[in-house]
C-alpha cells in the first residue's frame, strides 16, 4: 500500500508539470496583460513595470524562470496586488476557504447519506418522494439564489445571523456560507446514496443476512450501508477539491476573504502569477484527494488491493 501511494505521488509530478505548462501558455495566449486595464498608466510606467517583472523577456525564458521559482516554492508576486506575494495571499485566504469548504463537505456527507438511506429504506413511499423532491430542488436552485435568501431570512427577517463578513472567524458568520455551499452537495449525496443503497439492499448477501435472522440495524448499517458507501467515497474526492478551494459566489455574496474569488479576478486581470498559483493549488488538492479516495476504497473494500 505504501508503495502504491509512493507510486501515485511520483506519477503526480508529470501530471502537475503538464497542467502548469498548459495553464502558463493558455493564459498568455489570452489578449492583454496585467498592466493593460489600469487607466492612466503612462507608457513609461507600464514599460518599467513590465521590465521589473520580466514580462519583456521571450516567453520561453519567462516559462523557464517561472518553473525554476516554482520548484523553489516561490509563486512570485501578485501583479495586481503588488504588496503581496501569491504565497502570502494563499496563506491568508486558504485557511478560510478550507474551513468553510470542509464544514460544508462534512455536513453534506452526513446529512446527504442519512437522507439517502432513509429514502432507500422507504422506497416509493412518502419519505422517499420527499427526499427526491428536496434533492431535485437542492441541485437545481443555484447558490446565487440560495445565498441571498439565507441572508434575507436569517439575517434580516429573523436577525439570527450576520448578513456577511468574516468577523474574524466567528461561528455565526460561517453558518450562512456553509449552508449555501452544503445544500446542493447534500442533494447530490442524498441522490447518490439513495441509488446505491437501493442496489445494496437488493444484493444477495443482504438476503443472506435477512435469512439468518439478523436484526434490521445490522442488516442496514453493518451490511448494506458499508457496501453502499463506495460511490459516495468516489464522489468525495473531486467534491473535496472543489469545495476546499473556495467558491467565488459564496465568498463574494457573504464577503468572505477566501481564495475562491482569486481564480476569476486573477484571470480577468491577467494576473499571471496568481492564476498560476490558483491552478497549482487546485491541481494539488485534486490529486491528493483522489489519492485519499483510492486509499479509502481499499480500507472499505477488502477486494481492492494495491500492491
Amino acid at each position, binding site marked *: 500500500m505504501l508503495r502504491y501511494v509512493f507510486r501515485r505521488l511520483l506519477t503526480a509530478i508529470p501530471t502537475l508539470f503538464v497542467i502548469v505548462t498548459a495553464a502558463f501558455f493558455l493564459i498568455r495566449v489570452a489578449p492583454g496583460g496585467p498592466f493593460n486595464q489600469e487607466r492612466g498608466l503612462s507608457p513609461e510606467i507600464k514599460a518599467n513595470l513590465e521590465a521589473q517583472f520580466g514580462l519583456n523577456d521571450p516567453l520561453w525564458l519567462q516559462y523557464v524562470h517561472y518553473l525554476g521559482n516554482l520548484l523553489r516554492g516561490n509563486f512570485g508576486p501578485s501583479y495586481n496586488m503588488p504588496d503581496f506575494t501569491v504565497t502570502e495571499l494563499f496563506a491568508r485566504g486558504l485557511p478560510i476557504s478550507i474551513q468553510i469548504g470542509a464544514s460544508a463537505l462534512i455536513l453534506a456527507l452526513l446529512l446527504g447519506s442519512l437522507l439517502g438511506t432513509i429514502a432507500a429504506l422507504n422506497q416509493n413511499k412518502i419519505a422517499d418522494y420527499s427526499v427526491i423532491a428536496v434533492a431535485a430542488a437542492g441541485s437545481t436552485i443555484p447558490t446565487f439564489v440560495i445565498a441571498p435568501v439565507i441572508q434575507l431570512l436569517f439575517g434580516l427577517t429573523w436577525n439570527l445571523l450576520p448578513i456577511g463578513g468574516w468577523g474574524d472567524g466567528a461561528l455565526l458568520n460561517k453558518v450562512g456560507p456553509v449552508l449555501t455551499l452544503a445544500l446542493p452537495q447534500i442533494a447530490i449525496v442524498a441522490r447518490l446514496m439513495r441509488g446505491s443503497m437501493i442496489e445494496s439492499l437488493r444484493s444477495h448477501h443482504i*438476503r443472506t443476512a435477512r*435469512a*439468518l*435472522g439478523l436484526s434490521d440495524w445490522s442488516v442496514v448499517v453493518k451490511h448494506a450501508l458499508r457496501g453502499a458507501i463506495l460511490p459516495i467515497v468516489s464522489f468525495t474526492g473531486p467534491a473535496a477539491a472543489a469545495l476546499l478551494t473556495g467558491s467565488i459566489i459564496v465568498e463574494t455574496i457573504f464577503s468572505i476573504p477566501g481564495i475562491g474569488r482569486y481564480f476569476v479576478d486573477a484571470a480577468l486581470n491577467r494576473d499571471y502569477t496568481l492564476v498560476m498559483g490558483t491552478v497549482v493549488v487546485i491541481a494539488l488538492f485534486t490529486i491528493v484527494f483522489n489519492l485519499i479516495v483510492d486509499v479509502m476504497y481499499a480500507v472499505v*473494500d477488502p477486494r481492492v488491493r494495491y500492491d
Partner: protein
Amino acid sequence: MVASETILSVKDLRVRFRTLDGAVEAVKGINIHVNAGETVAVVGESGSGKSQTMMAAMSLLASNGEATGVVDYRGRNLLTLSKSELNQVRGRKISMIFQEPMTSLDPLYSIGNQLIEPIRRHRGLGAAEAREEALKLLRLVQIPDPERRMKSYPHEMSGGQRQRVMIAMALANDPDILIADEPTTALDVTIQAQILMLLAELQRKLGMAIVFITHDLGIVRRFADRVYVMRCGEVVEEGEAEAIFVSPQHAYTKMLLAAEPTGTKAPPPPNAPVLLEGRNVEVTFRIGGGFLAGEPLMLRAVDHISIRLKRNQTIGIVGESGSGKSTLGRALLRLLPSDGLIRFGDRDISGADRQAMRPLRRELQLVFQDPFGSLSPRMTVGQVITEGLLVHEPTLSGRQRDLRAVEALREVGLDPNARNRYPHEFSGGQRQRIAIARAMILKPKVVVLDEPTSALDRSVQKQIVELLRKLQADHELSYLFISHDLAVVRAMADYIIVMKQGKIVEEGPTEAIFSNPQASYTQTLMNAAVDVTRFRLSA
C-alpha cells in the same frame, strides 16, 4: 422412513408481484409440508415459482411481492409474525442457503466475522465462545485450515468453499429445517458432488429436515424422500421420490424426466477434409504490471494445444470453469491473440489481423452462452440476424436480406414474424434460437458453440441440441462444442477433448472417453457427473 411429525406446512400459499403490467401471480395456492428430519425436493423449471414459495415462507420476497395463505411452523403462522418474532425463527429454526455462492456472502467482512454474527445474535454467546463455535462449524463443513480461513474474505475463496461457509452459517444454530435453493447449480460438477455429499452427511449427523429447491432431477432421485413437482406456480404432482421416477403421473413430470438429451453423433468419414486446425496454440494473459508495479503475472490460459476439426465433425471441449476451454475457442477464431499455428482450410491464419480475418468471419461463427446479454436489446430480431449480411454480402437488397432472415428464422424453428419484434419479448430458448439464426444466416462452415445450452432449462436444452444436430446434418457444419455439461456433450460430440488448467488431459472418440476414461481427472469428472445427473427413465 419413520413417520414423524409435520413441522412446516404451507397451506394455500399465493405469491403476487405488483409490476408495471399489473399483478403477476407467481405461486397460485399451493400446499406443501415438511416432516422432521426428512428431505423434500421442490422441482421445476425456471419460472415455476419453486424459489418464490420458499422465499415467501421466509418473508424474503422482493419489496413488490406479497404472500397470502398460511406458512405454519410448529403452530405459528410465519406470515403474520412481527419482524422480531420472525427473526427468532429465521437463521435459528429455519435457515437457508442460496444458488449464488459467489455473491451470497458479504464481500466486505471476513468469514469469521460473518459466521460469528448469527451465533452471537441467536445464542447470546460472548465473542470468544462464538469464535470457538465458528471454528467448530468450519471444521464441520470440512474447510481446511479453519483458523486461517476465519480471517479470509469471501473473494479469497472458491465457489465451493463459499458454499461450505454458507452451509456453516445456516447450521450455526442447529436449525430444524435447512432450505437449499439450487445450492449446487453454480458450481462445477466435481464440486457439486462434494457439496451434496456434505449436506447428506450433515443431515445424518444433525438430523435437520432439508428442502431442496432444484431443477436437477439427479439430485432429487439421489437425495429426496418426497418430491413436489411445480409448474407455473402450481404443484402438478407430489409423492415419494422413487414412485415419481418409476411411474410419473402428470404429463409435465414425464416430459421433465424425458428431457435429458439422448442420441449420439456418428464421426465424419475418415477422409473428411480438416477445416480448422490449431497446432501448439498458446494464449497468455498478462495481469498487473506497469510503472513501478513490479513484474506482471503471466497466466497461461491455453498451453500447447493441438486440435483438428474436420468437416461435419463435432469436437466437444470439456472442462471446469477456468480450464481455458472458452479461451481456446476464441483463440482458434482469432478473436484473441495467440501463439502457435492456426489454419483454416488451406490458409494459415495464425498471423492474420482483424482486416485479413474479416472476409473469413462469415465462415467462422460463434454462439455464446448468455442468450440475454448477447443480443442487442435495441435492435429488432430482423436487424440482429441480418447485420452480418450487411458486411459480408453488401450487394443484397433490403428485400433479399429480409427473405434470408425469414429463411434463417424458419430454419431455427421460429415464426418469421419474429423479425419485427425485439429480443426481450422472447424466452431464453427462443433467444438462443435467434443467436443461432444470426450465425446460420451467413452460411458458415465452422461454428464455435460456447456453452450454448448452459443457461437453459433441461427441456429447452434438449430442443436446442436437436436443432443444432439438424442444422449440422443439413449443412455439413463443423462444431466446436464447449461445455461443462457431460450429458449434452455426449449427445452432441463425436470426439472429446478434456481440458484442465489450459492443458489437454485426455482426448478421444466420445464413446471411448465415456466408457473407458484413462486420466484420473476425467474419471473424477465422469463419476461426479454420473453421481449427480445421470438417470434414465427406462431404468
